[in-house]
């Protein structure tokens, strides 16, 4: 590895995205950028907190050609992005002429390039280890990302090893060790605190997170349960029954709900056509009476879970479910069978829920994350803000 020679004197850094790419949803860009920063928090005490305005350490922009710093971008291909070392301000610029993609072998993977550029923002130069993240050449999409030992040695030579066992504070749900943490209001009826098993959890198109339980739903915000919840599911999703098995929002912005042998499709709160339909009709190869479903950030595909098995559904493929499925859930190291819910949260992490516990999944290691306190953790406290 190589160091430029400057570094930040503080370890709790802030960033903001002042100009977004034109082809991706902001909520997806926020999640990928958070994931890219989290790469550098894994092995150090660095933390990265996103701000939406005001002064920050690292400013991120998606721009084209000449953009005011004398280092013009060159259109698609060639130079993908550049960043400034701490002594020069730490900002990161991405060429918006590139086809930035998430979880796809097409185009240029935003997460990988961003994680590289933030290495520069932290004081790392290019490495001549071709396997290192800090090597200068883009290696193409890597579904399972792993930081090279060369990169870890580099970042720790600047900011030391990780001493606090907690994950970066910009990862939701908020950790109680943050001094300013104020436990969120306990949900109105408190029932979810006594029994925090959920039917399903999913993100809406605009990035809100909803938990379904029976005939009610809770809206979870970044650090608490929204005031005035739970509410009746039928109030917000007219025509949708109670006791839903699974739900997810796909990149087409539509939210799919599954119950028994049937499924419904909504766009926001509006049913998107004549539903319910049979799962066998719209999701060929997927069984009925599902446990959980999600869109996995690692590749943007749809995963269904039932009992001890999982299926991968790719709408762009014929058939959408390969003959090699179902596969055992034990492939997802540390994830239990008979799940209740699965969620790819807007912070880029994947979460699994079973009973009153939840597991955070580390996509790069393809295993349940190790952290303190360890997983599984109580859902009631970390997701519903119960005491």
């Amino acid at each position, binding site marked *: 590895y190589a160091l430029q020679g400057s570094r930040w004197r503080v370890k709790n850094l802030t960033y903001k995205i002042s100009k977004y790419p034109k082809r991706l949803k902001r909520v997806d860009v926020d999640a990928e950028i958070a994931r890219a920063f989290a790469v550098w928090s894994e092995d150090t005490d660095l933390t990265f907190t996103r701000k939406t305005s005001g002064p920050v350490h690292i400013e991120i922009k998606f721009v084209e050609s000449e953009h005011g*710093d004398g280092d013009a971008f060159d259109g698609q291909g060639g*130079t993908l992005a*550049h960043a*400034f070392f701490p002594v*020069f301000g730490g*900002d990161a610029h991405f060429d918006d002429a590139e086809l930035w993609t998430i979880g796809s072998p097409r185009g240029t993977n935003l997460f990988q390039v961003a994680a590289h550029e933030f290495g520069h923002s932290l004081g790392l130069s290019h490495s001549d280890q071709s396997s290192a993240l800090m090597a200068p050449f883009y290696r193409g999409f890597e579904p399972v990302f792993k930081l090279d030992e060369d990169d870890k040695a580099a970042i720790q030579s600047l900011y030391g090893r990780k001493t606090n066992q907690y994950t970066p504070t910009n990862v939701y749900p908020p950790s109680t060790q943050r001094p300013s943490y104020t436990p969120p209001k306990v949900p109105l009826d408190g029932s979810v605190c006594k029994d925090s098993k959920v039917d399903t959890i999913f993100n809406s198109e605009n990035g809100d997170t909803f938990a379904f339980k029976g005939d009610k739903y809770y809206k979870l915000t970044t650090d608490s349960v929204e005031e005035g919840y739970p509410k009746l599911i039928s109030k917000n999703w007219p025509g949708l029954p109670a006791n839903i098995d699974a739900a997810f929002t796909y990149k087409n912005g539509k939210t799919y709900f599954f119950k028994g042998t049937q499924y419904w499709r909504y766009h926001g709160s509006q049913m998107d056509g004549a539903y319910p339909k049979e799962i066998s009709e719209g999701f060929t190869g997927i069984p009925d009476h599902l446990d959980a479903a999600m869109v996995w950030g690692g590749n943007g595909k749809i995963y269904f879970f039932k009992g001890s098995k999982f299926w991968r559904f790719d709408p762009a493929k014929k058939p959408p479910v390969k003959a090699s499925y179902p596969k055992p859930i034990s492939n997802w190291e540390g994830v239990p069978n008979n799940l209740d819910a699965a969620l790819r949260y807007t912070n880029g992490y994947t979460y699994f829920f079973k009973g009153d516990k939840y597991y955070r999944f580390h996509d790069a290691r393809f295993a349940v994350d190790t952290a303190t306190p360890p997983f599984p953790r109580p859902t009631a406290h970390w997701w519903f803000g119960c005491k």
Partner: protein
Amino acid sequence: APVSTTSQAEIYLSQFGYLPASARNPASSGLQDKHTWVSAIEEFQNFAGLNVTGELDEETMKLMSLPRCGVRDRVGSSDTRSKR
């Protein structure tokens, strides 16, 4: 655009810190003495893990065409780009 000519390679090597910044100026291209030119290519080949031949061979030109980060590989005091 693929690096296919010596002058494009010269601009590339200058952009990423292997030749003096002046070499990026097309007007001055071709003014490198042989030794500077050969050692710049050798240094890039060494950094990129290629056979160090000092020649602008096909392998080297191909690697110069790959999408990459715009930060220089050789960061010296000359890297004076400031934030604003």
